[in-house]
């Protein structure tokens, strides 16, 4: 039994979720507060990964990051970053692919909070950042938890994007979902079953925890 794909999946999910939490916050904050005409366009772009086949996303990223193209070669020459068939590339792809899963719950959470809460904080001389951290976020804990967990679970479950951009390199880009595919192709059903049952259980437990928590079954996180 090779544990590498599972560990890699875990690492990818943790790194992606952490980075995405920071990246999604300003986007969600902007979307929840703006009256700009650009809002529907940005919302569409953010939501695209929900409906687009992952292979489409993966294909365009593959093309864009390929060292034979201008952008890919520029990244490679100036920063020494290779995004194709690398873990860094996987993380970037996962961030884009899971963006709506983090942005949408946070945006929805922020939208439910009365504007007068932030305005009250501003009139007390508090900055936007302090208001976000001390007033807004503590009042949307269930939304934050939903965003974090959905992103984590969605990254664990991705397949198409990873295969397109990461390939199938053991220890580098071969995550659990791809390992399962690999084992099935090799008619190695028992190994495929082991990976599958682990992913199945982990996903079930994570989602159960979210619903228990947001349903108020645990006192310390509920509303």
């Amino acid at each position, binding site marked *: 039994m090779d544990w590498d794909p599972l560990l890699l999946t875990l690492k990818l999910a943790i790194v992606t979720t952490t980075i995405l939490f920071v990246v999604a916050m300003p986007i969600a904050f902007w979307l929840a507060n703006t009256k700009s005409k650009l809002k529907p366009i940005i919302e569409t772009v953010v939501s695209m990964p929900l409906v687009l086949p992952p292979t489409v996303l993966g294909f365009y990223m593959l093309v864009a990051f390929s060292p034979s193209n201008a952008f890919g070669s520029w990244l490679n020459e100036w920063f020494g970053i290779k995004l194709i068939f690398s873990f860094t590339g996987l993380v970037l792809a996962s961030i884009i692919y899971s963006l709506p899963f983090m942005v949408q719950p946070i945006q929805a959470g922020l939208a439910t909070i009365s504007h007068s809460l932030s305005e*009250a904080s501003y009139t007390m001389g508090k900055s936007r950042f302090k208001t976000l951290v001390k007033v807004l976020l503590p009042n949307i804990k269930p939304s934050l938890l939903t965003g974090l967990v959905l992103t984590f679970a969605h990254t664990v479950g991705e397949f198409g994007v990873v295969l397109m951009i990461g390939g199938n390199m053991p220890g580098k880009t071969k995550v659990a979902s791809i390992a399962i595919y690999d084992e099935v192709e090799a008619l190695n059903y028992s190994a495929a079953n082991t990976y599958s049952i682990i992913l199945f259980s982990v996903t079930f437990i994570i989602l159960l925890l979210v619903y228990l928590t947001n349903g108020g079954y645990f006192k310390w996180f509920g509303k």
Partner: protein
Amino acid sequence: MIKLAIQKELKSEGGKMSLNIDLNINKGQFATLFGESGAGKTSTLRMLSGLLKPDKGLITVNGKEWFESAKNINLRPQQRKVGYVFQDYALFPNMTVRENLEFALQKKQDRYIIDELIEFIELQELQNRKPSTLSGGQQQRVALARALVQKPEILILDEPLSALDHAMRIKLQEYILKIHKKYRLTTLLVSHDIGEIVKLSDQVFELQDGQIIKQGNASDFFGLDKTSAKFRFTGEILSIKQEEVIYVIAVLIGNDVVKIVSDPSEAINLKIGDKVFVASKAFNPIIQKII
């Protein structure tokens, strides 16, 4: 002294409205904005506090320019010393009463004021409770105290008592008046309640469609000085009944319904829903429409 001369195009549900406000309030005064919903009262308060940017004009407070379109000056709400009490109180649900007040502390400010204010609004017992567990009147007191933590130059009250019952309103009016005097504030109130306005304010401004249409001191404003009465209450007419040669008018004053006998010549000018005052000299009661 607050000097406000501002213009703003507002888009509301009823269409566009141009707000054109020009008013002066002396330091230490209690001023009230009065008028129908949508007349621009809240927008005026928001522009004074920096939450809404006027299109052009000038706002100066005690000689300092807070906004001047010609010089491109526009202080952020954070830079204006304003204590703002919102209509929905805007208490932070994640913090206790005490934490709500502490959040309003400025950098390096003496924490002593927190205890002083909690004692003043008589919330010592409840200081470790979350706002959602308090009654409306208690929440309002917390909001009031929180607005005072940063020792503002101006206290803004946007219909602070509209959600409370009568007894609670009376009690909170006392608090507001005490606070206004104790901290030597310049206070700006939005209210619809004439009794409340007369009780609290020095100056009244009436707004209609974004303009100030009338201003004066509170008793002049509602014509209360024209009668020399021994006692006087304001209320609302509930019913008018003709009985033989006289009329009996039922008036809601506070929570009490008072029946007043009226001459047909007086009653003819009155209708149900009118705001009136009921006054008496030695014997005969007078009933008269306020505006």
